[in-house]
């Protein structure tokens, strides 16, 4: 061996053994002595299978050059005290004065495997927590919609009917009165009842904004946008190019995501203009909501807790089998883009089974 090769061989951080074509060990460095627990004199002349018992170490047939330059194996090494360890083995063919041979560079990867095991355990915990969170959000969103719908139905079918009946009786009573002072009192009472009815109808709209009685998605969004324009002087453009008749559940879902985006515009964006665009793409609805406000740094905002609105927007889209991206940069406004398929929301059991799998 040249002195240069000898130096490299001796000072390599990895254990190295030189093996001839027959699998006999010709030499070993001090790291190999430390790793396998044999002196190099004990190793010389022995089969390489002493170090890797019961395993095939594929060696070159001696025809020479570059057959498996840098070939790589995962083997189980065995030391003189019969300790076994996972070994990462690189086989490098070389030419020596005595002919062709192979250098086996051996590394004990016990620690790496332990670290990988710990990482995988951590990953298990993370995935489980993520599944639980998704399941919780899924449940939360569905329960929220169901509850809103139930409350709206209750108000519509019960409370409003009772108030309407009360209003009717009030009118009958008023017609029987001759005293102008008493009629005036009843007029004021009737006005109060009208106000209560009007507020309850607004509440039903808020709870079921996209129901046919309210004119569907576009009408519901326009109402929100008009309110924002009136309150904050934020102009808007609404371009709804979806011609398909949307299932009620999808229509409500699109509205809720857009509504959340508009709440953010209202609360944070300081925008002058917001554009909403809906179009049919790939069997679903692609929505883009763009404002010209102050924007924000996603890296700063998303790392902090308390931005459940952003998570809910994404989660709503994912539950429906779609996706949602919310992007911004300080000073350049915010873009919310999402797509949901028309095929509708998957049934809850499917979602749960998939996520539990």
């Amino acid at each position, binding site marked *: 061996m040249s002195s240069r090769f000898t130096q490299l061989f001796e000072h390599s951080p990895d254990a190295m053994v030189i093996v001839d074509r027959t699998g006999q060990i010709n030499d070993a460095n001090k790291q190999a002595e430390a790793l396998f627990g044999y002196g190099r004199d004990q190793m010389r002349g022995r089969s390489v299978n002493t170090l890797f018992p019961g395993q095939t170490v594929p060696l070159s047939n001696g025809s020479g050059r570059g057959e498996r330059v840098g070939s790589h194996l995962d083997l189980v090494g065995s030391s003189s005290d019969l300790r076994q360890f996972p070994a990462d083995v690189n086989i490098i063919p070389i030419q020596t004065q005595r002919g062709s041979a192979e250098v086996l560079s051996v590394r004990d990867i016990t620690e790496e495997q332990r670290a990988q095991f710990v990482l995988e355990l951590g990953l298990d915990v993370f995935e489980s927590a993520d599944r639980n969170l998704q399941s919780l959000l899924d449940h939360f969103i569905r329960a929220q919609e169901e509850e809103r719908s139930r409350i709206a139905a209750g108000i519509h079918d019960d409370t409003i009917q009772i108030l309407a009946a009360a209003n009717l009786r009030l009118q009958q009573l008023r017609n029987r009165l001759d005293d102008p002072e008493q009629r005036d009192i009843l007029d004021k009472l009737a006005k109060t009842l009208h106000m209560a009815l009007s507020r309850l109808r607004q509440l039903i709209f808020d709870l079921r904004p996209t129901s046919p009685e309210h004119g569907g998605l576009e009408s519901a969004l326009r109402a929100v946008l008009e309110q924002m324009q009136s309150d904050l002087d934020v102009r808007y453009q609404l371009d709804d190019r979806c011609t398909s008749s949307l299932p009620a559940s999808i229509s409500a879902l699109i509205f809720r995501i857009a509504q959340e985006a508009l709440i*953010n515009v209202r609360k944070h964006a300081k925008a002058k203009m917001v554009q909403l665009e809906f*179009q049919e*793409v790939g*069997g679903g609805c*692609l929505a883009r909501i763009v404002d010209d406000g102050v924007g924000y*740094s996603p890296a700063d905002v998303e790392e902090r807790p308390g931005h459940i609105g952003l998570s809910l927007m994404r989660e709503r889209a994912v539950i429906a089998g779609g996706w949602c991206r919310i*992007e911004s940069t*300080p000073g350049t406004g915010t873009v919310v883009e999402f797509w949901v398929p028309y095929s509708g929301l*998957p049934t809850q059991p499917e979602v749960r089974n998939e996520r539990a799998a």
Partner: protein
Amino acid sequence: MRPIFGPNTRQVLTFLTDLWLLSPEEINRVTRAWREVSDVERAESWAQLHRAASLRERNSYLAAASVARKQAMDVASMLQRTDWAFWAAAWDAAAAIAARERLGSHYDILISPLATVFPSLSGSGNRLQVPAQRSERQAAAKREAASRGKVTETSSKQGAHRSGRAGMEAR
């Protein structure tokens, strides 16, 4: 290796690693390329991804996309690049790599911005390759960026503080 991002997990991980090799100019190139792709074409490709995959597969593709987006944000921040189109491109590309076999020609649409700097990623018909050679220029850019990392982080935080964006934290 555990296939956390589906069957192409290794390629996704390689892609995530390679994002760190990009130079500021390459990020600019990706950003420009992403903005040149039609929104509708991109959405069609995502629709294909969603149509062709089960819910579980979709979740793993979206996980790959989310990790890539975060990684790209970190890379961009380190190199003082703020255009979100870069991490949007990484989001698309990671999902495309993860779902490659499901996407057909849509793969090229989602990957094209990143393929401008990693040409080996392009080509839906070919087997996925890792970006071929990491040039010394890229490695030098990475080293230089790493040495600037702390300064950049500090200055960006100061910038955020000065611009009084505390209100946005409530999002």
